[in-house]
């Protein structure tokens, strides 16, 4: 079982600061855990496609309660667009992000 206190420890140990900006809203500083997942793109019609990866950040759901696709996350000096939202059952929201909108 995953407890709220575990979540805090997890973010304290592994998170980095990012700026989350909802469309037309005010930026806020949140903690996110950055991750990547291997992915093959455009593997159409049995051809091999292009190797790449998904960029994923995990945030506490309380920090991004109304997150929407096309909101932005700035990590370091780079701005990413949110392309997919996946809410988990243990208080986090996984955001797939992209450099392109």
């Amino acid at each position: 079982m995953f407890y709220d206190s575990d979540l805090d420890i997890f973010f304290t140990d592994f998170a980095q600061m990012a700026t989350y900006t909802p469309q037309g809203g005010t930026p806020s500083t949140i903690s996110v855990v950055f991750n990547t997942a291997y992915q093959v793109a455009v593997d159409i019609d049995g051809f091999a496609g292009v190797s790449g990866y998904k960029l994923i950040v995990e945030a506490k759901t309380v920090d991004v309660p109304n997150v929407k696709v096309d909101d932005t996350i700035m990590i370091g000096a780079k701005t990413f667009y949110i392309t997919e939202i996946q809410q988990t059952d243990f208080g986090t929201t996984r955001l797939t992000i992209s450099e392109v909108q």
Partner: protein
Amino acid sequence: MSIRQQIINILDTELKKILKTNGFNTDAGKNVFAWRDNPLTRAELTGLIYRDALNRKFPVSPIGKFRWALRIEVAIFGTSANEVRAVIEDVLKVIGNCEETKWGGNAQDTLLADGDEMAVEKHDIETGAAILTIEVIYDANKWSM
């Protein structure tokens, strides 16, 4: 060497000439692969993979010959829809050049079988792909290709 192999060799040579220095839109000729089954890397974009997936025999052939339709699929990969469209134009130009010479005198005709099929995905970056399918019609002696 079979006529089929000669046609494929000509295709490979001509695709590799797709370079801006040769008057094409792109440098896709730097990354041409036959039957490649592992994904291209970003450094290999724009890139092309081709395969002669089917050699279909016509039911009616000239006497003493087999008439074949060699189906060749060319997959085009790039970093944007615009880039993929530019490579499609380059590949069509190459196929047109091959058609003009009847593939080195080896073929009777070239057909653009299915036009093109294109897809674009946006993950960490934008990636696009398209497939062009052609059929090269050629005659070979009976029991050869």
